[in-house]
Each structure stands twice: as structure tokens, then as C-alpha cells.
């Protein structure tokens, strides 16, 4: 589905997850053909455990399968597990494994493989990048070749969501142990729709159909060539010249131009990515919610959305991404200089103040955004110095707790899981490990709400807790939320069934090429 230009209006929560009409108006899917993609990033590893970047993750999900999978639905769907049951204490999960699934090398997928993979996921020494996702798992067990049991230390609200991420992808145990981490990362074998045919680092990854894939008749494509094209202009020229049928990350400035091409459409879709400016609440005046409010009121989001993003985004009404339990009813701060001045007058720094803000060097979008803020905030007496530093430096400096402001756009911040829990822990739980994303926001209510939501699988309770958290954060959290970012993908008319999922990747097994 292709969004109309001009942007989508704020959608209801469920609107994020409109089920794709199976293969709707495009007629019956056709088998065969090679799809060429031009991507903005390249994989660094193809090992599900150890990957942490979109370049790798989006490829890993094409090669591997998980017990439950992310689809166009608010809840994880059956995949390698055909179904599951949960005990009353919500601590024991029993998965019925799909029969007859084979890895792409022809080996059968067994419960041992599942156990091996989930155990690695649960081991924080192995799973360093996403240790928190598997931390709740106490023990796993193969009750029978087709029944896999996971026992949790405590109930975990997002358990299934975490299982649907790429991290607990099922790998063939025997082969993995034989090949070792390094070799497996280069030439992985999974049970996903595609398998790796060729990987030339820095250039391209070629995937071909996994002949043993369990989904009936899928995948449709024989082969996918994913080229690494870092330059955004070049990426667009790739689809323009039909050297590629899909190009990711259409630059905002070119949405109109590319969409106007006869054979290309720009798909604009909601994903769980967002953009905000963060402040260090350990430092004055950012410990003063009035100051934060003043900055919020002084930010002309509407105008920024229009000029910077050409409308392809939504004004954020939350300081984290628009995930499962997002409440559309919460109001975003309007642009209101009078209110801003009023708030500032009531604050600890009524005369305004100076701040310096870290941004990532070389990111033109962020630079522009920062300059608008600089120019706008000056109107209420806040002078902002922009400090562009490279990515390598940025986390160290922001993590040091000595900086006062930091902005990092949606391309870098997105949720990997379908529910809010992970982001909530990172951003709102001071005790969660990185002191509320290093903002130092230590709010007891927020911490309690995070724990409350995480500790239950009762959907209503979870929803209520997250809604409360959202309102609390909007009122007090030391950040200026800006936009919910949308995925912008240039897609050739020939490509059918392509869709960007809220987690930003794509189920390429659904894609087929029209003749």
C-alpha cells in the first residue's frame, strides 16, 4: 500500500497494523525473477546474535525464522511455532513446533536447534547487544521433538514480542557449533525464506530462494540482490534508471521528484522510529519541567515537518516511538511562543539560558533541524551552540553525563520490538541500566509504571500503565519530542507485495515481480 503524499494524519493505534490485503488488487503472485534493491546500509554480520545495526538485522530476518514472527499485526504471529500456551502464573510457555521444517541446507529443524538458539538468546554473556530481551528466561526444555518449553523467572509482558525479534532466530545447532561464530556469521544457514548466495562486503548481498522454506509456495522471488548504495542521490538514481527496483530511505527533499517518476512510487509508512531532543536533567536548568515545557512550546514542529520532512512524518505526542500501547489522545505541544515565554518566566531561568547540543557530524538532516531549533529558541532567549561530533564520540560524551543536550534522529532510534517495554526501560527507568537514556530522569512513578507493565501479560493493565507513562513523560520528561518518523521507500511499479513493517524491515517472501 502506498501512502498518499502530504502525509498521513495521526492514525489510531491500530492503524499502524493494518493487515496487508494478502495479495490484493495485484492479482495472483507470480513466481520467479530477481529483485534488485539499493540500500542505505550494509550488513556487518549475518549472525542473529551480535548484530545490532539495521544493515545486518534486515538481512538476518530474510535468512532466519523465529518461533513467532512480526507481521502486519499488533501481535506476533505463529511461525516456527504453530501455537503456544501459557501457564496461569504466566511463567511457563509451551510452544508447539512446526513439523517438517528444514534449514536451507536440507537439514531438519529440531527442537534441539530451537533450544540451542533460545539458550543463546537468554545468555547475557553471549547476547550482549540485547541481553535485556532474554533476561527473563530461566530455563528451556524440549518436552518432545515438537514441544518446546520456556520457563521465565517472572512474568514478562513483552515476552512474545521479544521472541519475534531477529535475535532468537533459530540456527542449526550442529552446524553452528561446527562452523563457529565467525564462519557462521559469514555464511549463515537458517530456515528463513532466503539463503545467502553471495556476500561481497561493501558492495552487495545476494539472496536466493530457500527451496525448503515452509510457507507454501513462498518465497516468490528466485533471487534478491541487495546493493549497498550509501549516497542518497545515487540510490534514487538507481531506481530512476531501473538498475534497482527498490531504494530505501528516500531523502525528504526528493519524495516529490521520485514519486513523480512514471515507473516508481514512494511508499511512506509508519514505523517505530522517532526524533527528539534530549536534555540532561542532572544539570540546571533542565531539571526544571517548566524549562522543558518552554522549549517544547517554542518548537515550530508544524513548519519543521513541512520544510524539513516535506510532510512525510507526524508530530510526536510521545517522547518515545509510537509503539503498541501508544495513546493518540495525548496532546502534542503546540507551537506557542507566548506560552513558551510564560513557562520560561515561571521557571528557574526566566531570562533564558545558553546550552550546547551534541549532534552527529555529517548528518545534514539533523544539522538543519538543530539550526532551526537554534534560530527558534533564540526567540525566547535560549542560545544554543551546536556541537557536531562523530558517532564514535557521541555516545561516550552523552553517556558521560556532562553534556546538556543531545539530538539523534529517527534513522538511529527505533524500536526493535513490537511493544513499548524495551523503550520504556531504556528511556524511563532510571534503574534500567543507562539512567533513562543518560538523561538522568529519575522518576519513581515512571519506574513503577515500567515495572508494572513489564510484569504482567494482561493487555488491559499493560495498556493502562503505558498510557499513564506517556502522559507523565510528556509533562515531565527532559526532552522535546519532535516527530514520528516514517519509512520512505522508492518502489518500482513492477514490485508487488512489498511493505515496510513497523519494525522497519520487510517480509520479502511476500514480494513478487509483475511481468
Amino acid at each position, binding site marked *: 500500500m502506498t501512502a498518499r503524499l502530504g502525509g498521513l494524519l495521526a492514525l489510531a493505534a491500530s492503524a499502524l497494523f493494518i493487515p496487508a490485503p494478502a495479495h490484493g488488487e495485484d492479482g495472483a503472485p507470480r513466481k520467479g525473477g530477481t529483485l534488485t534493491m539499493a540500500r542505505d546500509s550494509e550488513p556487518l554480520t549475518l549472525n542473529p546474535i551480535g548484530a545490532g545495526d539495521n544493515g545486518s538485522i534486515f538481512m538476518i530476518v530474510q535468512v532466519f525464522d523465529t518461533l513467532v514472527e512480526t507481521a502486519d499485526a499488533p501481535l506476533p504471529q505463529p511461525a516456527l511455532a504453530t501455537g503456544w500456551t501459557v501457564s496461569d502464573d504466566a511463567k511457563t510457555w509451551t510452544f508447539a513446533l512446526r513439523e517438517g521444517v528444514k534449514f536451507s541446507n536440507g537439514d531438519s529443524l529440531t527442537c534441539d536447534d530451537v533450544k540451542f538458539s533460545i539458550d543463546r538468546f537468554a545468555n547475557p554473556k553471549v547476547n550482549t547487544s540485547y541481553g535485556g530481551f532474554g533476561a527473563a528466561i530461566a530455563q528451556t526444555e524440549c518436552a518432545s521433538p515438537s514441544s518446546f518449553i520456556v520457563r521465565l523467572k517472572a512474568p514478562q509482558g513483552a515476552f512474545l514480542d521479544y521472541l519475534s525479534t531477529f535475535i532468537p532466530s533459530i540456527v542449526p545447532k550442529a552446524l553452528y557449533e561446527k562452523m563457529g561464530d565467525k564462519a557462521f556469521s559469514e555464511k549463515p544457514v537458517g530456515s528463513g525464506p532466503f539463503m545467502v548466495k553471495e556476500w561481497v562486503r561493501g558492495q552487495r548481498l545476494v539472496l536466493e530462494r530457500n527451496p525448503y522454506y515452509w510457507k507454501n509456495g513462498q518465497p516468490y522471488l528466485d533471487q534478491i540482490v541487495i546493493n549497498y548504495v550509501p549516497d542518497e542521490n545515487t540510490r534514487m538514481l538507481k531506481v530512476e534508471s531501473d538498475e534497482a527496483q527498490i531504494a530505501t530511505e528516500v531523502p525528504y*527533499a526528493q519524495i516529490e521528484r521520485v514519486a513523480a517518476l512514471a515507473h516508481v512510487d514512494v511508499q511512506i509508512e509508519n514505523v517505530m522510529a522517532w526524533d527528539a531532543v534530549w536534555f540532561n536533567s542532572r544539570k540546571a536548568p533542565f531539571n526544571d519541567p517548566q524549562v522543558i515545557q518552554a522549549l517544547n512550546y517554542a518548537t515550530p514542529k508544524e513548519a519543521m515537518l513541512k520544510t524539513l520532512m516535506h510532510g512525510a512524518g507526524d508530530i510526536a505526542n510521545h517522547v518515545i516511538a509510537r509503539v503498541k500501547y501508544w495513546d493518540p489522545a495525548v496532546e502534542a505541544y503546540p507551537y506557542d511562543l507566548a506560552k513558551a515565554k510564560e513557562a520560561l518566566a515561571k521557571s528557574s531561568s526566566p531570562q533564558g539560558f545558553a546550552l550546547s547540543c551534541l549532534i552527529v557530524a555529517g548528518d*545534514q*538532516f539533523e544539522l538543519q533541524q538543530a539550526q532551526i531549533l537554534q534560530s527558534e529558541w533564540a526567540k525566547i532567549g535560549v542560545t544554543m551552540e551546536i*556541537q557536531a561530533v562523530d558517532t564514535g564520540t557521541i555516545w561516550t560524551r552523552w553517556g558521560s553525563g556532562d553534556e546538556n543536550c543531545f539530538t539523534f534522529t529517527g534513522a538511529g532510534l527505533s524500536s526493535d520490538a513490537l511493544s513499548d517495554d524495551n523503550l520504556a526501560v531504556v528511556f524511563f527507568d532510571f534503574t534500567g541500566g543507562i539512567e533513562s537514556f543518560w538523561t538522568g530522569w529519575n522518576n519513581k512513578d515512571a519506574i513503577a509504571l515500567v515495572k508494572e507493565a513489564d510484569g504482567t501479560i494482561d493487555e488491559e493493565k499493560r495498556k493502562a500503565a503505558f498510557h499513564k507513562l506517556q502522559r507523565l513523560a510528556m509533562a515531565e520528561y527532559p526532552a522535546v519530542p519532535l516527530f514520528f518518523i516514517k519509512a520512505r521507500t522508492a518502489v518500482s511499479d513492477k514490485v508487488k507485495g512489498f511493505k515496510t513493517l513497523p519494525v522497519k524491515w520487510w517480509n520479502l517472501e511476500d514480494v513478487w515481480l509483475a511481468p
Partner: protein
Amino acid sequence: MRPSPPGIEKDAWLRLTRRARLDRGWATISLYAGIAIVAFIAALSAAAPFLGLRDPTATDLMNALQPPSLAFPFGTDDLGRDIFARVVYAGRVDLVFGIVVTYVSLVIGLSIGAISGYFGGLVDTVIMRIVDLVISFPFIILILTIAAIVGPGLTGAYIGVIAVSWALYARLTRGEMLAIRRREFILNAETLGYSAPRVVFVHALPNLLRANLVFSMSDIVLNILTLAALSYLGLGVAPPTPEWGEMIAQGQKNLFNAWWISTLPGLVIVLVGIGFSLIGDGLADRLDESGR
């Protein structure tokens, strides 16, 4: 013009005098045309605050991406800033950067190169190995380190570029020094028992200047381009201060829908480049010593 002497074919003589004027004149024309171009841009930049230009840093989202018009001679960028004003103000950063970096490097490189060439031996070997090192050391690592130590922005760019570009002057000067130290006026200074610093700095250095000065003209442009490249990587001038390279980099994503954002500042760099290279050509001729 002197009248053609007797017994001379008038046409041929005329042709020759014209050629002589042109030949002689070109260096002068080149020098003054170059100075005129650079001076024009420099004067414009220097006088920027008094020209009644729009605030180069003020964003005006309502007027974003305006093509060149009477109101905005160079158009506006996607934040609605007046590109003409920005180009003019940017000259203050770029020209000063180009000139300061170039001449600080020149002075350092000239001194080190002269010492290296004059004393020879171990001093020379050590210095030239350091020069090799600087020349083969990846520039970007150095810049990043310096940016990390002194903070991002212009200071880092200044230090980083100087840290590298002195080496070429040192190499150039050493070569010249090797040639000049055999000249008799240097020998004479030595026989008179002048101290080594006096021989090197008072007697040799002024004569090493020409090659360096001529080279410095193209180096200024090169250094401005380097600053532009640093801006491209986000390590140049701290925003919102306008800088030509930063403007060009910023316009990159708008190249297809607003060509003027990158192109017009780019043309200004080209103009400055032509200006300095004209000065270089003129200087090369004018500083030609001896008149033999």
C-alpha cells in the same frame, strides 16, 4: 611606443611591440585581475554587516527553497536563509581560514625546510622522515583526533590542516635550499663567519620565498577546499555560521529540487580559485629574481 627604427618592416615591428606588450602585460594583468577578484570578494565579505543583507543565520521557514529572484539574488536554502547573505558572510570564514592556514604552514614549513636543507646530515634525515610520515599519515585520523581534543569546529580544522600542510612547504623549501646553499652569496656569508641562523634566516630565506609564495596561492584554494571537505564530514565550522563548503554540502540533498543551494556557493569557490591562481601566475613572473 617608440617609433619603428629605420630599415625595419613596419608591420613586423608593430607585431613585435604588440607581442611584447602582451607578454609583459599578461603577468601584470593576471596579477591585478587576480587581486581584483579576491579583493572584491574579500571586501564584500569584510563589509558584510554594513551591506544591509539579511541575517545569514536567521531561518525563515515560510521562505524556504526560493529560487534566485530579485529579493533573494542567490535564492534561499531549505531553512529559508538568504544564500547570498550566507555566501558573503561565509567569505569571512573561508578567506581567513585559507590565508591564515596557508601562511602559518608556509612559515613553519619554510623554517623547517630551510634548516633541513641547510644543515643536511642527521637533521635533514630526521626532518624528512617526519615529513614523509605526515604526508603518508591519513589526514582524517588526525583531524578527528584534533576535533576530539579541542572540540569540533573551526579550531580543530585550523590545527589539523596546518599540522599536515607545513610538510609540503618543508619539502619544497628543502629542495630550494639545497640549490641555493651552493650559491656564492651563501658561501660568502659562511666565510664571513656569520652564525648559522643568520645565514639561514637573513640570507637564504628571502630567496626561498618565491617558490613558496607561488605555491601558496594554489594552496589557499586547496585549504579552502579542504575546509569544505571537512564540512562535508560535519567537522568544519560550527553551525549556523555560514561557510562555503558547508553550504555546498548542505545543498547536496536538494541538488535535484533546488540546484542553487550548492551551485552558487560552488561558483564562488571557483571564482576565488581562479582569482588566487591568477595572482599566483602574476607573482611567479614578478618575483622572478636576478633579471638575468
